[in-house]
């Protein structure tokens, strides 16, 4: 243990504790800006500088360690002035157009400047004048970038992608696409982790809210909306709702008040996905066992995460045949809505305006793929909104969800099981798939918690389960860095599996790049627990027991992997190119 004095308080902490953590343990919160625990501990912004007696210069508290007998002043005159001046430096290169910024009110730079009492700027303003293509789902506005370097670190070290880099040097140092390319031409997976880890509004999603308002107000359109599983864990965070009050049913009420005609649940198509993907897995296993058949490579990978699909296409194009051909739940929903449901309503599919609310940016790109269209070439899903966008729409429509009662989702596309709702957490797709695969293989339901070994926040989980006497080796990875490690080990022959679930975002969709932003907090675990709780409490916990899905097969699709199911619910991952 090390004893030191911080702001006249005696503090005792273990060796190798940072000054920042030591101060926090004594209840002293040293302001930080660029710091992000375990991700970005580079001491770049110099906001957390403190005075250490006996040392002439100030010391960054975030990445320097306590020493025995150290006397620290976190708010001495020198530290205070330096901290404030450094924020003024950053503001001199920051477009402080807070009134038209999506991060206003949730911006670390703004709060810091306010906290430090900065009321005027002594330095001339110099803006870089660069923003990226605003048609792409991910937008960079360098007039707001403060070069904290977090996006570079998250992309490279957490997501193993490396889209961002320091592209110039000295006073012209700029964070931008490595090599100076256009963002759309990179292998960006659109995981959006750079957005959720950006302290300012330099990175954001393309805002599609106006298109949705227009459609809602268009009397010719039937507006329906699907809500992804992970959305129900987070949509209330920025609206002042307690987690237990921010239910999907209350969100349904808000969306109806906003003017949507039908409010459905992506859980419906998550169950559908399990039927198709699970059947596909068993079919692959069966075909692989046939003598003389075409060789089938294992493992089969899940396909519900479009960020993962983008990553696989750009990093492992030779493995696309190993990814399930099943569309993601969002796209299965879109395809079913504009065929089966349009027929049920007796309307032309072109009258349907299909919106999805997703914790995700990659879903925006997925919905726009040339392969995700109906017979007329119209997209199956018209607009994808992130949770942040739907929250903005709720505020813009001056709806106070706290005052709304819960209401049921519409049927039949609003029905989902516990197996569907866990799609939003890492391990959930695997867990759900195993429950139904077991049923399909044995004709009996397993204990719904039989496969709980794939749950939890370890980056790379593996388990072997017995499926009617056949051992099934499965693995789950979340975060593309973990996916990268898993696939490299597979390719090196160090591991082998039959079925692998990959989610691009750490923690799965609950940690998605389209979720509400809380600087410095990783909420994937807490949000994931909501989903696992919903599953545990659900009356139905097996996808194959979803009555709407059963009806869909009985009345329309026949059976999983039928010709019509292949047509509507499966896709060719090789039929489109990245960077286009």
């Amino acid at each position, binding site marked *: 243990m090390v004893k030191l004095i911080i702001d006249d308080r005696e503090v005792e902490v273990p060796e190798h504790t940072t000054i920042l953590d030591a101060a926090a343990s004594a209840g002293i919160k040293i302001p930080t800006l660029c710091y992000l625990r375990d991700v970005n501990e580079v001491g770049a912004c110099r906001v957390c500088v403190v005075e250490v007696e006996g040392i002439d210069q100030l010391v960054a508290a975030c990445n320097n360690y306590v020493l025995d007998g150290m006397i620290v002043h976190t708010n001495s005159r020198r530290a205070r002035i330096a901290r404030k001046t450094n924020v003024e430096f950053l503001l001199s290169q920051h477009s402080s157009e807070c009134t038209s910024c999506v991060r206003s009110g949730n911006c670390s730079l703004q709060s810091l400047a306010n906290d430090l009492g900065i009321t005027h700027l002594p330095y001339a303003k110099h803006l870089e004048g*660069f923003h990226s293509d605003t048609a792409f789902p991910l937008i960079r506005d360098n007039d707001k970038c403060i070069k904290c*370097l977090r996006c570079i670190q998250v992309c490279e070290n957490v997501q193993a992608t490396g889209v961002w880099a320091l*592209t110039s040097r*000295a006073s012209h140092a700029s964070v931008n696409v490595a090599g*100076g390319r256009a963002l759309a031409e990179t292998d960006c997976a659109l995981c959006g982790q750079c957005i959720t880890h950006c302290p300012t509004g330099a990175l954001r999603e393309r805002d599609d809210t106006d298109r949705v308002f227009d459609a809602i107000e268009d009397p010719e359109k039937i507006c329906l909306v699907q809500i992804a599983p992970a959305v129900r864990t987070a949509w209330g965070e920025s609206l002042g709702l307690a987690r237990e009050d921010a239910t999907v049913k209350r969100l349904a009420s808000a969306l109806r008040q906003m003017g949507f005609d039908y409010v459905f649940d992506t859980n419906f198509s998550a169950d559908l996905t399990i039927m198709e993907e699970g059947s596909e897995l068993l079919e692959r296993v069966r075909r692989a066992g046939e003598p003389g058949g075409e060789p089938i490579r294992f493992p089969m990978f899940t396909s519900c995460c479009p960020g993962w699909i983008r990553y696989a296409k750009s990093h492992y194009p030779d493995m696309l045949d190993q990814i399930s051909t099943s569309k993601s739940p969002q796209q299965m929903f879109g395809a079913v809505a504009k065929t089966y449901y349009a027929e049920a309503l007796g309307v032309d599919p072109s009258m349907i305006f299909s919106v999805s609310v997703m914790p995700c940016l990659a879903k925006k790109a997925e919905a726009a793929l040339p392969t995700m269209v109906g017979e007329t070439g119209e997209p199956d899903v018209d607009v994808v909104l992130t949770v942040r966008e739907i929250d903005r729409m709720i505020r813009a429509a001056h709806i106070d969800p706290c005052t709304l009662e819960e209401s049921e989702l519409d049927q039949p596309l609003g029905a989902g099981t516990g197996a569907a709702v866990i799609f939003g957490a890492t391990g959930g797709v695997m867990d759900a798939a195993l429950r139904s695969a077991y049923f399909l293989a044995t004709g009996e339901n397993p204990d719904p918690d039989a496969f709980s070994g794939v749950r939890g926040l370890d980056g790379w989980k593996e388990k072997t389960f017995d499926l009617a006497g056949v051992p099934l080796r499965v693995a789950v990875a979340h975060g593309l860095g973990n996916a990268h490690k898993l696939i490299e080990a597979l390719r*090196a022959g160090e591991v082998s599996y039959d079925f692998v679930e990959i989610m691009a975002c750490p923690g799965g969709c609950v940690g998605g790049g389209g979720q509400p932003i809380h600087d410095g907090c990783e909420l994937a675990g807490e949000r994931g627990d909501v989903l696992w709780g919903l599953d545990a409490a659900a009356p139905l916990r097996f996808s194959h027991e979803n009555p709407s899905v059963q009806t869909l097969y009985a009345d329309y699709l026949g059976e999983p992997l039928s010709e019509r199911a292949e047509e509507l619910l499966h896709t060719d991952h090789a039929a489109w190119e990245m960077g286009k």
Partner: protein
Amino acid sequence: MARLHVMERSHAQAVMDDLHDALGRRLAARSLAPCPVEFTAALVNLCATQSCGKCTPCRVGLKALADLLEDVLANRATPETIDLIEKTANTIYLSADCAIGYEAGSMALMAVRGFRDDFEHHVREHACGFDENERVPCVAGCPANVDIPGYISLVEAGRYTDAVKLIRKDNPLPIVCGRVCEHPCEMHCRRGIVDDPLNILALKRFATDHMECDYRPWIAKATGKRIAVVGGGPAGISCAYYLAIMGHKVTIFEQRRHLGGMLRYGIPSYRLPREDLDAEIQWILDCGIDVELEHAVDGQELARLRDEFDAVYLAIGAHSDKKLGLAGEDAEGVVSAVQMLRAIGDGEMPDFSGERVVVVGGGNVAMDVARSSVRLGAEKIIIAYRRRICDMTAQDAEIAGAEAEGCQIMELNAPVRIEVGADGRVAGVVVQPQIIGEPRWGRPAPRAADAPERLIACDRVIVAIGQDIDSAPFEAMGIPCSRGRIVTDTEGAVHGFAGLYSGGDCQTGPATVIRAINAGKVAAANIDHYLGFDHKVLLEVELPPVQFKGKRLCGRCELKERDAAERVGDFEMAEIGLTEQEAHQEASRCLRCDHFGFGAFRGGRNFQW
């Protein structure tokens, strides 16, 4: 009113002089900018401030040039801007009235032409295309990328064995390098910006001299692969070590009686004591490396080795001597430095008692043979060199050491022939005095001065003008060679010969120990890969936590030398290592660029290779 005044230094002038010194140190330690366009802009801005303001091109042109460069940096420029920059620089060069202006124009011109690709990249991509990674300066400066801040922190913590362990992750010869490394790591040491660069060499030596205990490296499971290393110099030994710890079976084939190559047959023992060299080599051989001494390898033998072994590393060094090409060179008493040092390396000490010796050359080897001659009893030693002392390629410390030991340097004297006596023995060297002139190949070239030839009477001439590579037998079998050097790709692989790698002096031409060591390390990694493995060499030492100390001025502890009068009498180590007090103070001066500055973001530490 007085007619004249004595010059007095104003306060401002004194401050300016101090800042000038600081700027000089700063520029010595760090380039103006890690981006070529930033570099040019900084250079032009600096030059512009030096203008007196009288003349148009310098006063206005340099400012206009700076504006154009800012346009490039701020992504406002078009391809035409680059042409305009070149035209502007050229006009300043052609029409400025004094050197302040025309040299500024000349530098800007050189920059825009030399960096044309970088300028175009900025204009086209709005980003810097210069991908020279900004790394920890000492680590980047070390050809083997040794984790210098890491082992210095271990020296500071008094953990010397761990320090040596850490060094050996990247360089298996720390004892050797702690004595003879040319320490390019110190060149850009950031401490130089504050006061003086760290004495990294001395700290490495201190660690090797004060290990608390020996240790053995971790050796991977035997792979069953066999590799032949041809040549037992630093490149070969380094390659053999890393391959051995990766679990491969290595045999070194050495032409001479002992291992060490130029470490033994080139570097005198007063710089690298034989017992230290032997101990370090033995430590490496104990990893299970076989050695075949006095086993020369020619083309035919190489072909046999390639058949018998899974891979071959060719590291034969540069051991044949260059000739002066002067009349009388074959006379008795004229020897090459290579011959002389080779004999000494095998323990055959010649006797120069009472002789007058002329050494021809200006490199480290010339200093080595001159200083060895002192120890062999020579009465008078003259080093004849055709350029100036400041043009010598020998390290300053070596030149100073030679002079302190009584060697006389005759600069600007080019040997023109060897005077041979009636007995067929050398009688002297005839030299032509030179005058220094305009630069050729980067340094000022001498030419004959209007002065008569002179005879330096002597009993012995030692020619130390460089070494050649004995690559002819390999070239004959089709191995690609260029000007005597074996040609490989950057991985060390010889094109067209699967499994054959080469490196060290025979591939680079005569170079430094540390470059040879790195060549061996690179080859080991790539041979391992070639054989289908991916063994990683890991950082196995836990480093002490970084401590912020802030700026504290403190001079650099230098190595002391034994008294010149005493050391000329033997071949014992001339330099004295640091004391513990000195070593700890010196280690504490390290600014830990692996943790502070850019190192915190990128390039802080390589945990494996």
